[in-house]
């Protein structure tokens, strides 16, 4: 009797400790984000002592970054570059991943080659690309960024789709062929519908990587005609260092698409990131 009580008591203590630590963890994760959020809404974000929740709220900072500054231009650039480069990466990657799972030409060499791109430091790609294209006037254009992002996009999307294609049994395609459908019909009727979740998570992860990319954009673009959001945000450090309200607002705007995308892909993100 006494023993059970004691046991229950120690169980309760363990439980409380576990929840306390998990609680601290969530505060650690979310605290900075909440801080960002309120900074963008505070009339006066820089107070001494600092306040997490501001006393007066305003949408002024959002209006400023969207209308007084040129954030929409940077957003446009980011959207175009991200969309086009993701589209190319995913289509090229889907073809490669399919061939690699079904026939593996080159016996592992090709997949190793594609994945080894991850070992290239972006700055070590950016400098030679800069030198390649500076002569023909492509610097500070969307197309140079779109091209430069392919070594990021193709490996990640190929890798993710490899995992998803591997899960489609090849017997399904064989059954379809036996049923009398041609190769192309089989691809459209069986492979694509079943690979759709994989293709969309590859697209989402690739898009997130490109949306966030900084180093290549820093080297290859020079004005707001082609610069992307991370470059705009980084500008707060040097030129507008004290404009915390705008910084918070711009940060929130920049991460909104990512939050939406990763929410859409929630469960599949796990599969994509774990790369089993």
């Amino acid at each position, binding site marked *: 009797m006494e023993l059970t009580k004691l046991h229950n008591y120690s169980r309760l203590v363990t439980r409380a400790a576990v929840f306390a630590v998990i609680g601290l963890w969530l505060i650690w994760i979310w605290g900075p984000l909440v801080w960002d959020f309120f900074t963008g809404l505070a009339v006066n974000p820089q107070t001494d002592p600092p306040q997490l929740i501001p006393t007066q709220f305003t949408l002024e900072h959002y209006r400023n970054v969207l209308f007084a500054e040129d954030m929409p231009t940077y957003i446009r650039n980011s959207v175009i570059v991200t969309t086009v480069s993701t589209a190319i990466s995913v289509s090229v990657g889907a073809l490669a991943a399919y061939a690699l799972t079904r026939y593996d030409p080159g016996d592992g060499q090709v997949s190793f080659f594609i994945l080894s791109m991850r070992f290239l430091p972006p700055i070590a790609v950016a400098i030679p690309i800069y030198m390649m294209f500076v002569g023909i006037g492509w610097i500070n254009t969307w197309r140079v960024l779109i091209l430069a992002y392919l070594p990021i996009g193709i490996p990640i999307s190929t890798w993710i789709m490899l995992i998803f294609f591997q899960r489609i049994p090849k017997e399904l395609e*064989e059954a379809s062929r036996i049923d009398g459908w041609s190769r192309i019909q089989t691809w459209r009727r069986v492979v694509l519908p079943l690979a759709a979740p994989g293709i969309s998570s590859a697209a989402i992860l690739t898009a997130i990587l490109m949306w966030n990319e900084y180093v290549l954009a820093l080297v290859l673009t020079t004005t707001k005609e082609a610069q992307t959001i991370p470059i705009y945000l980084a500008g707060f450090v040097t030129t507008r260092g004290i404009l915390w309200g705008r910084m918070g607002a711009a940060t929130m705007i920049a991460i909104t698409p990512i939050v939406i995308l990763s929410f859409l892909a929630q469960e599949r993100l796990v599969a994509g990131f774990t790369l089993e």
Partner: protein
Amino acid sequence: MARTELDELRKEYGDLVAVNDVSLTLNDGEFLVLLGPSGCGKSTTLRMLAGLEDPTDGEILVDGEVVNDRGPHRRDFAMVFQQIALYPHMTVRENISSPLRANGVDKDTIEDRVQRTAEMLDIGELLDRKPGALSGGQQQRVAIGRALIREPRAFLLDEPFSKLDQKLRIQLQKELKRLQEEMDVTTVFVTHDQEEAMVLADRIAVMDDGELQQVDTPEQLYRFPANEFVADFIGNPTMNFFEADVSHGTIAVDGVPYDPPEINGHLESVRRMAARPEDITPVPADDADGLVATVELVEMRGTTTYLIVDCDGKELTVLQPDEQRIGEDDHVRLEFDFENVSFFDGEGDLVRQTEHDRTETSIR
């Protein structure tokens, strides 16, 4: 009528010969089972027939015409896979009708045929469900339905029941056999389960190590295995093997002389003998000559009882005679029914007892 032939069909993967010059003719309307241990090349043979693998060499002929170059969608074979392979994103109806839609059959005919097929297989209620919501047995019925709905040149099945439990397997075997007879469609069925092969087949083609060992009816295969591999592979419990030497009217079985009632044919070349459990009779040990063994285990199997006996270190399985009760640790003397045992030469090939073997058997 559709006559399908395999002519010296060969498949190599690098240095590995998976299928070694297999020649085989499928008669119209027959149920042929390709039987062999895993890795013997039976599935590869079937897949080459279906067009899913390209042969390294040899030809596949349909009505005398070589079809090697035709893709699987242009061979008009239906196939059921071991992995079932139903399209998970389509309903049962869409799955079953897939072959008809591929061939551009009109809507009304499709609906009609779907209904008839569903009725035949008792899956009428499942038509609007997705495969994921079905049990293993139901899924396999749908897969069979997808093959049955067309009137294919031949019906190819690759170990379709191997993942189902025993009871379901036996039930589906019966149904398949009945449907096959009703529809009279040529069928090739791959399995590693010799009992399944015996139940289903008109003819069985036994393969080992990429080579065809024997093609024959189940009865002939059981009674006259063409070589030691087939003898060992067919039948459960398996055959008992002995060293054998025939001279001057006596047979030395594992060195112990026996005097058979009559010996026919030229058995000088015999080196080994194989006897089924029912061809060995244990009698209580007495002073007479013969192999002596000790009963180690009495194994009840429903109506029959087998004795596992130890004969000078060799384990044998013999049938418990009806009239006698023999218990564990009893000493027994073994008598053979020499008319029914099989003899093999030094190469492991069957040596016939001419007088007795009237029926012709053939390899391929």
